[in-house]
């Protein structure tokens, strides 16, 4: 299948032209091009592949492959794993948790061996979410990377003042962080709140570690969402492939606004796309896939090393993480099935 840019006209006329994708709802683009903020949902066929380039011989290899969950924002269907390696499905108990994995224990993986996960995802921008069964208190414990020091608390106190309404506090801090933090390209960050605050720079994990630490300091529960981000709808080709490495990993947050309301925010994308700064306080462009929730996760069975975030395959040999790019690589291939505009 040849790749081509999905132009505004093709996007609008897709269903009529029989190009394999449909447009529902009203006009979603302006004359200047497709408006990313007005894309309601994207349905994609995803092929996620981990390819082994070389593996240590005669060592126990443990592999954890994250399974994207279905929830109110994303619907996963036709999920299939393809591999010659013996895999274990998530247990029933584990299945009830927010994060799921396929687990493989093996030895002597051949060069070129692949693990492939295929599924269809319909990702929808639904804005603020009502979650009745979610206990907000469980999202008030910072990970080891989200501590707050005097610099952070002073900044929060000064910025927020005497305001007590969670959404207003969240908005003031959102504006403050987006304003003061520089976005960095082509680095693999650790997402440490104190360093992000001091250095005033970083990528998604740094923006969100800092924001999370500030909200928690103010007693506002906030969930870490981890996954990957694909090209924006306005830039997305009908099909494409990205490397699923630390550069393309992406995080965002949902803070508790009181009652059952959880509000999505993406500060780093608000920084990268100033035209979407208002949008990203309460909305997410659906060009993303959530793979897990939380940081410092303990997988099933437990991995040996600390896992900062869990967006892609985690591999250990005799309990030691393999080296990405040297021992293995991950890729995500996508194919647009359908895009819908806001009604």
């Amino acid at each position, binding site marked *: 299948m040849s790749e081509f840019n999905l132009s505004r006209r093709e996007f609008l006329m897709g269903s009529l032209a029989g190009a394999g994708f449909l447009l529902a709802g009203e006009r979603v683009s302006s004359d200047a091009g497709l408006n990313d903020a007005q894309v309601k949902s994207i349905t994609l066929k995803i092929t996620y592949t981990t390819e082994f380039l070389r593996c*240590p011989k005669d060592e126990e290899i443990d592999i954890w492959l994250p399974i994207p969950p279905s929830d109110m924002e994303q619907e996963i269907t036709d999920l299939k794993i393809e591999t010659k390696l013996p895999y274990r499905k998530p247990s029933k108990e584990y299945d009830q948790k927010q994060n799921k994995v396929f687990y493989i224990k093996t030895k002597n993986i051949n060069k070129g061996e692949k693990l492939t996960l295929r599924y269809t995802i319909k990702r929808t921008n639904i804005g603020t979410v009502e979650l009745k069964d979610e206990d907000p208190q469980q999202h008030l414990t910072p990970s080891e990377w989200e501590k707050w020091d005097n610099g952070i608390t002073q900044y929060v106190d000064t910025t927020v003042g005497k305001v007590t309404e969670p959404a207003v506090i969240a908005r003031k801090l959102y504006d403050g962080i987006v304003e003061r933090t520089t976005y*960095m390209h*082509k*680095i*693999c*960050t*650790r*997402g*440490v709140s104190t*360093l*992000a605050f*001091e*250095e005033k720079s*970083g*990528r998604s994990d*740094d923006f969100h570690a800092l924001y999370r630490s500030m909200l928690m300091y103010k007693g506002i529960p906030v969930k870490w969402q981890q996954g990957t981000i694909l090209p924006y709808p306005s830039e997305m080709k009908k099909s494409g492939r990205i*490397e699923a*490495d*630390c*550069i393309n990993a992406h995080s965002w947050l949902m803070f508790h606004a009181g009652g059952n309301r959880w509000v999505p925010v993406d500060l780093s994308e608000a920084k990268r796309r100033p035209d979407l700064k208002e949008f990203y306080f309460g909305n997410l462009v659906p060009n993303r896939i959530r793979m897990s929730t939380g940081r410092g996760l303990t997988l099933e069975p437990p991995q040996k*090393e600390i896992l900062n975030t869990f967006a892609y395959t985690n591999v250990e*040999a*005799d309990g*030691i*993480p*393999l*080296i*990405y*790019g*040297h*021992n293995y690589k991950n890729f995500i291939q996508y194919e647009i099935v359908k895009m819908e505009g806001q009604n």
Partner: protein
Amino acid sequence: MNGVLAIALRTLLTLLLTSFLTTLTSGKAVASVKEGEPAPTFVMVDENNKEVDLKTLIDKPTIIYFTHNACHYCTQIIALLKRAETKFGSKNLRIIGINIMAKDGKLVKAYKKELGFVFPMFAGNRQDVLKAYKINYVPVLVFIDAQGVVKSIVGHYIHEKELHDHITDISIK
């Protein structure tokens, strides 16, 4: 009035003594890395869990390279550093690797074996080291001259020519 003065003096002396004792017990605070200033040094463990004082290694132009296992670009920089060590000679250039994922020598040993390099590497998953070098991401290369002074810090992927230019810069006597 004399009584008030005596209390004030006693309080001041107590504060000074407390400050002095705190300095004695906690040791000298480690300064953050800064161009033009001495490189922060630490006693760190290598792949055999042997403790090494980095200060003893910075006796010639030195590169301290921060990396970890999940960083794709970092692996490519290891290849460039291996080539630089050959080109400039181990008598003229010291390369020190710090793996910020490693808490002990086990991970370092596996990393060195997989990537096949011989320059020293240390377990760098330590708050004091990460804070002193402000490591919130990798790759980071710190270029240090023979006097132990930081000449430059590069916090992104580096091309071979740029790497060699930095090495030449720290090699000027």
